[in-house]
């Protein structure tokens, strides 16, 4: 059974530090939501609030129609996966997974054979059959985290909460587990909230991404939404790379140092603004209207693409540009750059 989660106007303060500022978020039953933000943005605090491990100063969290303040930790039925596994190291894998079932009041507790059957089924689900009698210390990091997930699923949770579950693992295993978790979610269908500071992870896994910054919810939306239409400068800079150009908008055109660099703007009223341009939205062009002259100062390899750093007069930082063609300019060459797509935010 899986429920909707409604977060309504949550405030949370730790002494002088305001961790969350009137955060509201609605999560549909079965939805996979990623809470994304840099460290200190309040994402883990929000997750712990949903779990009931922290108490809000204001606002409330609903599971379906039920106010969670009326529920004990046990009755909330939360599957929680910690960044550092938090497995019980004196117990075997099977005992770890069965812990939640054995903790139930006697009347609701399944009998031994049933528990054994469920442990086996869960180990099957997390693709680690036959590890019942191992101790956590005998498992690799990736295996431990999957056991932790099996333990969380054993109590048939209403909501699954994951606190940077892959944070302690190396890059290869992270990637494998990501795909595996996505697949697991589509099979089990738990309402899932996933905390991460890795934007790639959030974009790849989640149905919707909620981006937090300094305790505020900056934007909530599908991965495509937040990546293509960032609502704030922060979201724009946090999700992937972006060049920032200080411009002046007059009419539908943006001017850098009195040179028009981009046209067809509609959303801005005019005045000073910051133009955010992703490296792959910059193109090397011949001398065409709205192109910016610059000098190639650096060439680097970034995975599949090559990156050119181009110095432009009037800009303190070089522009990052992804080269799409095999023909690369030489260092020191004079080039012209055109913006193919950008997001503008008015600056005060």
């Amino acid at each position: 059974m899986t429920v909707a989660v409604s977060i309504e106007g949550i405030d949370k303060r730790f002494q002088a530090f305001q961790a969350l500022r009137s955060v509201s978020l609605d999560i549909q039953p079965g939805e996979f939501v990623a809470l994304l933000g840099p460290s200190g943005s309040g994402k883990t605090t929000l997750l712990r609030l949903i779990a009931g491990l922290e108490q809000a100063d204001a606002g409330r969290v609903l599971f379906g129609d039920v106010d969670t303040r009326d529920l004990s930790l046990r009755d909330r039925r939360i599957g929680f996966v910690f960044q550092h596994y938090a497995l019980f190291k004196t117990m075997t894998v099977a005992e770890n997974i069965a812990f939640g079932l054995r903790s139930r009041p006697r009347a609701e507790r399944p009998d031994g054979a049933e528990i054994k059957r469920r442990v086996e089924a869960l180990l099957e689900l997390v693709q680690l059959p036959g590890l019942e009698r191992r101790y956590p210390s005998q498992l690799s990091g990736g295996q431990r985290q999957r056991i932790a997930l099996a333990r969380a699923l054993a109590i048939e949770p209403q909501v699954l909460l994951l606190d940077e579950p892959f944070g302690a693992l190396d890059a290869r295993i992270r990637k494998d587990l990501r795909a595996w978790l996505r697949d697991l979610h589509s099979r089990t269908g738990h309402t899932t909230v996933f905390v991460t500071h890795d934007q790639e992870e959030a974009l790849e896994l989640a149905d919707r991404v909620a981006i937090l910054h300094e305790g505020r919810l900056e934007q909530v939306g599908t991965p495509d939404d937040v990546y293509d239409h960032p609502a704030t400068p922060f979201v724009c800079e946090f999700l992937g790379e972006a060049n920032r150009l200080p411009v002046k908008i007059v009419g539908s055109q943006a001017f850098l140092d009195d040179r028009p660099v981009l046209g067809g703007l509609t959303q801005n009223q005019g005045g000073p603004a910051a133009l955010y341009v992703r490296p792959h939205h910059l193109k090397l062009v011949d001398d065409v209207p709205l192109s910016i002259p610059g000098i190639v100062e650096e060439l680097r390899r970034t995975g599949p693409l090559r990156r050119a750093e181009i110095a432009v007069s009037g800009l303190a930082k070089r522009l990052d540009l992804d080269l799409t063609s095999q023909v690369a300019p030489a260092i020191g060459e004079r080039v012209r750059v055109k913006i193919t797509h950008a997001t503008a935010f008015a600056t005060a």
Partner: protein
Amino acid sequence: MTASTASSGWRQPSILPGLGLSLGITLTALSLVVLIPLAALFIKAASAGPAEIWAIATSPRTLAALRLSFLGALLAAAVNAVFGLILAWVLVRYDFPGKRLVDAAVDLPFALPTAVAGIALAAIYAPNGWVGALLAPYGIKVAYTPLGVMVALIFVGLPFVVRMVQPVLEESQGDIEEAAALLGASRLRTIFKVILPPVLPALLTGFVLAFARAVGEYGSVIFIAGNVPMLSEIAPLLIVIKLEQFDYAGAAVIATLMLLMSFALILLVNLIQARTRKRLGDV
């Protein structure tokens, strides 16, 4: 050529140099400080002859002293295990004014000359002392009784348990407790199934250390015990008494007995320890 193969036959080549040298130094030091004196003790004890050894070892006064020393030390260590654990728990888990002071005070029994502790305890627990006066109306006498011995032994052993358990509690705090609570475990279940088991090896070590210290304790006990033969006379005191009577063999026999019993007990606990520790890796 042959020499080099012969030397590498029993020694794994290692990038850490100086095994031979450091092993030599430590073994020499260990021999000078521990092994040779203990060997001398056995030789001295053996000089008494079998019949005499048996007579000394089974004399009622010796048995009473050994019983008091070992039972007292075991009980004191057990009390320390319980209260030391609670004290460590409080120090790790809670913030309260004066916490650092309490934390520092735990080490005082380490630092204080034991005679000072003994005199202080005797003064407080004597029938006219602060605490003793409160207990006297109920007919409870602490100073100059076996109970007094216990108090002194608990005093000297306390820091061991606290200092052993504290770091383990600190390390395992937080996550696992929250995990247990979210999985629906009651508080009692969380404490006994989740929090205590990882602490157990450290607790056992603390128990052994407190016990070892208590068995050998002399200074603080003799001031509060009253030292009545057969009643509140501890084995170390009996050894000193024998020495003062120039009964070196008798002293050596009792000392050897204590040594063997302590060694057997500590070995036993260490074996239990090794069994529990084997499966507890670092998680």
